[in-house]
């Protein structure tokens, strides 16, 4: 059974339809890249998977581990192992990163019937995960994302992922706003978390990230549909020809239809 199965997914915000029939199957252990121009629906797809209620699903279904994902509340999805690295992580003033993560991890553990982790165990666990992200320990005690630089925020997202150990991670434009060094660190963290049990969906506008996180499958999204899928070479091709080619291709297809 695939970990995630999306069938004919349609979603809109207000009156505007953004996803127009997405079909996507992701198996455990795979890394899928979703690429596409601005406005193609990449971020919407990520948000719908995480349960953001700004979007209304009008058609189709999403099965996660065989269960109907669309019926689940966002926190339930998180506890079931879905993680989203946000494109714009929010700031939560006054709540330390450490405290926040402990509460989150224990919510997840409780859901899975595991014992809650106490302060000492959590601290040593977290320190070990921090090394993955080459993160300064000082960031643990600072309020969640408050006053973090753009790069720090993105690294913090991957650090959250490392602590929460999801089964399906959705990375929403994690590369945007990163310089090359930060990109390398973030990608290093992501690669360290690749495992046969875990799947990842990497949403990105640029091929650049995929030099560091090498995907098993690349999908090109345009106007709310996946217009082409292939291996990592598709991303390189895209880099050369640009998205316009696909848009034209799709326009042709639409004309023919």
């Amino acid at each position: 059974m695939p970990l995630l199965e999306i069938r004919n997914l349609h979603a809109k915000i207000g009156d505007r339809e953004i996803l127009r029939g997405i079909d996507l199957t992701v198996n455990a252990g795979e890394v899928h890249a979703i690429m596409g121009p601005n406005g193609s629906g990449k971020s919407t797809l990520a948000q719908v998977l995480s349960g953001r209620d700004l979007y209304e699903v009008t058609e189709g279904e999403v099965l996660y581990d065989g269960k109907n994902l669309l019926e689940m509340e966002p926190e339930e999805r998180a506890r079931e192992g879905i993680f989203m690295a946000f494109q714009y992580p929010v700031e939560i003033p006054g709540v330390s990163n450490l405290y926040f993560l402990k509460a989150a991890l224990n919510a997840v553990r409780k859901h899975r019937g595991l014992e809650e982790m106490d302060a000492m165990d959590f601290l040593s666990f977290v320190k070990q995960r921090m090394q993955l992200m080459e993160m300064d320990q000082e960031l643990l005690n600072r309020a969640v994302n408050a006053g973090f630089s753009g790069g720090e925020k993105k690294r913090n997202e991957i650090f959250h992922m490392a602590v929460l150990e999801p089964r399906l991670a959705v990375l929403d434009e994690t590369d945007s706003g990163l310089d090359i060094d930060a990109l390398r660190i973030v990608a290093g963290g992501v690669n360290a978390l690749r495992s046969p049990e875990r799947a990842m969906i990497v949403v990105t506008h640029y091929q650049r990230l995929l030099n560091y996180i090498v995907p098993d499958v690349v999908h090109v999204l345009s106007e709310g549909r996946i217009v082409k899928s292939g291996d990592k070479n598709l991303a390189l091709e895209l880099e050369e020809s640009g998205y316009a080619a696909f848009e034209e291709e799709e326009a042709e297809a639409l004309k023919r239809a």
Partner: protein
Amino acid sequence: MSSHTETIERFANQEYKWGFVTDIGTDSVPPGLNEDVIRVISAKKNEPEFMLEWRLKAYRHWLTMKEPEWANVHYPPIDYSAIIYYSAPKMNKDRPKSLDEVDPELLRTYEKLGIPLHERELLAGVAVDAVFDSVSVATTFKEKLASMGIIFCSFSEAVQEHPELVQKYLGTVVPFSDNFYAALNSAVFSDGSFCYVPKGVRCPMELSTYFRINAQNTGQFERTLIIADEGAYVSYLEGCTAPMRDENQLHAAVVELVAHDNATIKYSTVQNWYPGDKEGRGGIYNFVTKRGKCAGANSKISWTQVETGSAITWKYPSCLLIGDNSVGEFYSVALTNNRQQADTGTKMIHIGKNTTSTIVSKGISAGYGQNTYRGMVKILKGATGARNYSQCDSLLLGDKCGAHTFPYLEVKNTSSQVEHEASTSKIGEDQIFYCRQRGLSTEDAVSMIVHGFCKEVFRELPMEFAVEAQKLLGVSLEGSVG
């Protein structure tokens, strides 16, 4: 969108958990106020002549005064003639010598509140001067404190045992003519706490009083006086919850603090009186005058308050910074939900040279709650080098509540520095969603965000109080890790 609003409403609409009435026979005077009632109160307490004189002067002055109307709060007129001005729990004539002699019903009340005296004594190292209605029924740790020369007792006891100290300090910070409620309190106050820390003594434990309002229709008029002599240090905790009831109850307390040279007084409050029901029926009217006098050089007075209860809160813990280099602080969290109204803040009056004050106010409004910060920073001519920093933040939960800020600045010395920062924010849907995506429920997310908002104030609270405060806001303790 809708699920978010619903949950915030659910969060805001949590029932008041501490409502219950203890049935103890009370020994009350009839409702209404006149000079005879004051004489009865004074006589029942066996007060010296100067006390009666002072009460009567206050009463006569009160008759000339009008209830203040400037506060941003609304309530039906109070019928002062319907209030019972004195009631005491009935007991075997004399006051109990130990807890064994205390009415078991009363002890159970404390247990229901989660503050069993025994445990508090043993575990928290807190000396408890328990005020039940109007008369103190139990005082603990007094002997240990006495060995250090610290006087910590009920106000009535202080009047009997240390009349010279009472006479010297009573009304020196809040004169009976100060305002309508202070005058009323001065005339009829029944009891409260008294503390004197002698020169050079550091009080080894947090001093604590639990105020309770219990007998129906009894306005409670507490009076607290704390004096820290030269170089002394004391931290005082005041906390209260009250039984559920339908009729409004008036509470008009007065707190006076005096800090001499190099002395420090830290005064912390957690206030959780019955706030009224969802429609705003019932609930306590909390009209309190709290003021500290930094009389000596290098003295410091620090107020920290967490105000979550009461139908109406009218309260401005203030500092008179008279001594050179003296320091005044005010840290406040005020939460209003349903129909609660709070008009609270502080006054920092800079008189001495190089005096500094810090104001951190956090207002949280939910439901139809109205939250007003009203603060005054006054820098007098002689206050060379005075500095003030004020920060007033408001957090809104939902869209039917309100936050208001009225900062008053009066600066008469050009060498002073005054800073004021203010912000108003709403708990963002993005913030809540972010938390939920990490596995937290919406309630936990809201609690966490609210707690984060209040953190700077909670930090100022003594540990056991911080826990209680966080419980009151429905939040688990932060900072237990790392």
